[in-house]
């Protein structure tokens, strides 16, 4: 019997999509191993009511750790809480979403504390004998590696959108347990002084099914207004390459690439982007890539599925109009 624990943090209002994605990953891993039980650790303030949703999306059991101190999602507090959960449940595998909290902090630190191996930013896995081989991109997506973690428990963080959430099945049954954890006693050497967060206008890069991205060839910030209009018509998010972000045409938070967001939308429209490796590391897993570039030898056309060779000024306004007309039918 293999127990797979998926870890998610949530707020009372919102259960992130990645929580359902790693459940789908856990379910698939459990099924491949033949006799896996999928448990979900749900951590946050007043999050009990998400328990049932997790069951409907594939959890066999849910363990809730709820405490007001979890409100701010401070890494040290979450880490201490999860460490206790893992010690109590003794899972064989722990799956995390590869986000700033888990991939960048809690996952690796928990691995260290448990004296066990971890593989980060995985997009898949396979079972060989009794070993789980975690598949992940390396070298900015130019190569792939199968990695193996050893130790008393296996930890892995999963890239966003690598797994699709299972469709909810309201007939699924599973117990939702509440864990008694003394969250108040966990010390946090790092304190949160201030958090400023504006509600994002439009759709975030992580959630978008369509992304319109611009590069250095947009020539200035004005160029990005044209992309924003297209994005609005398509219900898309706007991204940018590193030169565009470094030049201040798009905020760094919208940077797609090895040093920015790694995205995998259904449709990625790359406008005036040459297709440098740094950018493709972030956009390369998109299902369909459309490239619009005036240079027919641009490397982007080597990775794009559909291409248009032209100045963006000749295409984008007309494309916006054509899509607007098409989508209003």
């Amino acid at each position, binding site marked *: 019997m293999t127990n797979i624990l998926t870890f998610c943090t949530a707020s009372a209002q919102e259960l992130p999509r990645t929580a359902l994605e790693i459940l789908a990953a856990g379910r698939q891993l459990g099924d491949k191993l033949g006799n896996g039980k999928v448990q979900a650790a749900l951590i946050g303030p007043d999050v009990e009511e998400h328990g049932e949703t997790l069951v409907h999306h594939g959890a066999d059991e849910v363990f809730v750790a709820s405490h007001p101190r979890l409100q701010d999602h401070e*890494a*040290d507090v979450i880490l201490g809480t999860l460490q206790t959960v893992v010690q109590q449940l003794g899972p064989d595998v722990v799956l995390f979403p590869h986000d*700033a909290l888990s991939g*960048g*902090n809690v996952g*690796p*630190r928990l691995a*260290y504390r448990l004296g066990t*191996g*971890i*593989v*980060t*930013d995985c997009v898949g896995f396979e079972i060989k004998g009794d070993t789980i081989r975690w598949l992940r*991109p*390396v*070298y*900015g997506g*130019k*190569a*792939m*590696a*199968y990695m*193996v*973690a*050893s130790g008393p428990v296996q930890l892995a963080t999963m890239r966003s959108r690598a797994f699709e959430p299972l469709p909810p099945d309201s007939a699924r049954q599973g117990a939702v347990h509440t864990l008694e954890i003394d969250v108040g006693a966990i010390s946090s050497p*790092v*304190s*949160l*002084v*201030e*958090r*400023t*967060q504006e509600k*994002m206008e439009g759709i975030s890069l992580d959630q978008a099914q*369509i992304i319109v991205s611009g590069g250095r060839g947009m020539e200035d910030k004005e160029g990005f207004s044209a992309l924003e209009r297209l994005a609005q018509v*398509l219900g898309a998010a706007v991204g940018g390459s590193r030169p565009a972000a*470094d030049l201040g045409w798009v*905020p*760094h*938070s919208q940077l797609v690439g*090895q*040093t920015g967001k790694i995205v995998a939308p*259904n*449709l990625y429209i790359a406008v005036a982007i040459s297709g440098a*490796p*740094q950018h493709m590391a972030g956009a390369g897993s998109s299902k*369909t890539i459309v*490239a619009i570039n005036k240079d027919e030898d641009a490397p982007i056309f080597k*990775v*794009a*599925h*559909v*291409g*248009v060779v032209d100045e963006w000024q000749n295409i*984008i306004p*007309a*494309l916006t109009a*054509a*899509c607007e007309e*098409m989508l209003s039918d």
Partner: protein
Amino acid sequence: MHIVVCLKQIIDPEIPPHVFQIDPVEKKQIRGRQALLISDFDAIALEVALQLKEKVDGKVTAITIGAADAVEALHTALAMGADETVLISDPVFEEIDSFGKAHILAAALHKLGQFDGVLCGRQAGDVELGLVGPFLAEMTGLPCVTLAANMEPENGKMRFRRPIEGGYEILETTTPFLATITNDESNVARYASVRGIRKAMRTEIPTWSAADLALDPAEIGLETAQIEMEELFVPEREIRCEFIAGESGPEKAQQLALRLRELKLL
């Protein structure tokens, strides 16, 4: 204020895919004629340390684990403005995992003695696991701030600005600390001039071996790596780009919209 920055030297990650080569037996990239560079986020971490040094009086020490040629990364670091550097190099360090690297860096920090903070890039630009920084924090027991973009001293403590979706956080901790560094508008790494690098090449760079760090090879997990690459391969990508033809921009745009609809993408 003494800040230690941990750097990794990697093969230029910006080389195009057609010159990218791997050795599937050794499970690593083949360098060929490609340049060696300081990994992106590590250069940014150095930038953050240098910016702090410009604000308050201080010293920046750059350290790296690597073969003899990793000294080039330290020349670049000196040319960017680092005050001191150390190359940590020993043939026994070749096959270590992230735990082993954190172990070696912890020993190096111990040997350095006094410091106020340690910065690591968010992840290296080659294998991109992003583990050494958080492991090193746990191993040394230092407060751990992750994915910060810059820092400023405040009442004897250190304050970090950390970009988040749609905004930022300010985090505070006591010194000494460990922080992993990500990029934002404020910390684009400065260039090292060729002249600066040439000048730096005249600087004697100390090299520390396993013995200098009193490290027992058995202890740093050479035999017991817990994170191992079993297989490295370049995926086959058979993409043939379908070009949209047309007499004019608007015609191509119209054809593109129709094609996207046919592909059920719109």
